[in-house]
């Protein structure tokens, strides 16, 4: 049992499942997820010495996984020319109640992923770390090498943008908009 073995046991072994899930949740494509995961592992490998001395190595590793997956998602969206449209695609149903009911779960998942793909990198990474991986703000800040207040701003801006893109999926926002109408 060498030092590297111990380092792996301490840093990676406890979060192996979280690493895989972090990439899968963003990619959701059996064909692409393996490449993205391999890319994330390569980044971890390259930064191994830095990770070992990082104050919160596991948050950093999770961040690397999320970053890689988000980059891959953006690349994929670009390939499909989603970004050229500059907004959520036109085929997203309108926000009426009956239309909302018609959207299937799978479609909603796709819309949420596409909306996340439209976010600026830092905002997307912060909201994914916070809302999906439930990493505390302080740990996200350590991983992103910025202040906690900056992370909170990224998350708030991400929420605001997602709210405008996905209002038809959120009951409260939807209700409020309907009552104003």
């Amino acid at each position: 049992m060498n030092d590297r073995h111990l380092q792996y046991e301490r840093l990676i072994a406890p979060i192996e499942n979280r690493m895989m899930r972090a990439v899968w949740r963003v990619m959701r494509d059996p064909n692409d997820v393996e490449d993205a995961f391999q890319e994330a592992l390569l980044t971890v490998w390259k930064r191994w010495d830095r990770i070992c001395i990082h104050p919160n190595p596991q948050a950093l590793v999770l961040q690397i996984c999320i970053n890689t997956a988000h980059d891959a998602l953006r690349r994929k969206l670009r390939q499909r020319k989603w970004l050229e449209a500059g907004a959520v695609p036109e085929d997203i149903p309108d926000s009426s109640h009956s239309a909302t009911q018609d959207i299937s779960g799978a479609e909603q998942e796709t819309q949420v992923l596409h909306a996340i793909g439209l976010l600026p990198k830092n905002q997307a990474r912060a909201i994914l770390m916070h809302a999906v991986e439930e990493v505390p703000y302080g740990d996200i800040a350590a991983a992103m090498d910025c202040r906690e207040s900056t992370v909170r701003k990224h998350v708030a801006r991400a929420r605001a943008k997602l709210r405008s893109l996905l209002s038809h999926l959120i009951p409260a926002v939807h209700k409020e908009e309907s009552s104003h109408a």
Partner: protein
Amino acid sequence: MRDQNANNEMDELIRRKTQVEIPAEVEDRLRHRLTEFRTRVEQRPPNRWRSLAYSLTYRPPLRAMAMAAAALVAVAVGLVLIPREANASRVYAAAAQQLRNSQSLEYTFVFSELPYVGVDFSYAAPGYQRVNCSWGIEVRADHTARKQIVLMHLTRMYVVESGKQVESPANSDDWVKQLESLPPAADQVLGERQVGGKRLIGYRFVKAPDGTSIPGLKSFDLWVDAGTRQADHVDIAIEEQGKPVYQMHIRNIRVNGQVDRSLFDLTPPAGYTVITAASAEARASKTAPQQNALVLQAQIRQSVALTAVVLPMTGSYAQTQAASERVESYLKTLGVTPVGPPFGRFESVQSWDTGYPVPLATHVEAPFQLVSVPAAQIASVVVNGPWGPDSTGRWGAFLKSVVEQGYLPAGPPMEIWSGDDTKVQTQSTEMRIAVTKAN
């Protein structure tokens, strides 16, 4: 509250729509990748020298190639690795020397980012110092003349001290000693980091420099600009027994820069009144009829550390009651019972907060914050009865009592309100401020 609900719903939507299980077949493939990765990590050579040694002990036919490779690696090490380490040492030595021989020094000591609690410090040889605290206290000192002025911006009052060795109130000059006494070499080189277009090299110290002390020091990380070889900032981690680690920072370090001499001007600003024994007595007698039970004699004691939920505020202090009620109502929705009476910390109208002490494990969401109020030496006085509108007069009298006892304020003013809102006779307010010995 509506915003909070909307945020929760948005987070929940993202969570719900992304938390899908990985198909077994995909998971198998990813696990295979992880296994390969683990093998690579475990086989990763501990350092370049060991890999070189291994290559030389392998099969004889390869030895010649290994020797050639070794020669190349040696050249690479000579050209890249050694200069880099030597360069890091030189950068550190230059920065430490500049700090040791500094003729002027400015920095900001940040105790807390949000709400902001910090101290701007300026020093110019041979003995001018200025400490400007975010909670409204400013001290300007001329050590050559053994004279200093303490400005209390909150109450627009000042105290002049002279004839003895004057010291700054927030112990900020101790940090000058820390910076000036850096040892010849760091305990650890942290590597490089790009920040704002600057290439910074980090140096870690795990114990205070000789002749100085930093209670509970876990790490003292000095980051030096490799280009200018000047100290850029310091991150300090303090770990006291039984408490979570907390971070402090020294930022905006400027060594041998041009310091504005007017910062050390000992002339009191216009409109400020001097605190003298006579003025304090007059104020006390004037306010006595309205505050029969007012005790002006500040008690110096050690406070107990506490954890609290606070609501950071800006603007008029008239919002205090409404803000305090908002915290109370939030705690009720969380089902958290406060472990003490409400309080307010009034650093400035730009940054103040109010809240309740709570159990350690409480979890809160923005805009509320869970903060740790450390134990400290404090001055304290309890005013019985309703608080009333003459806050400035009470604080003036209280601070005068503090100064008369040989102490200076070293933290934001704090008020702790006890009693039943509906029963005047049960109400009391504790005025409290962190203090440090003046000499």
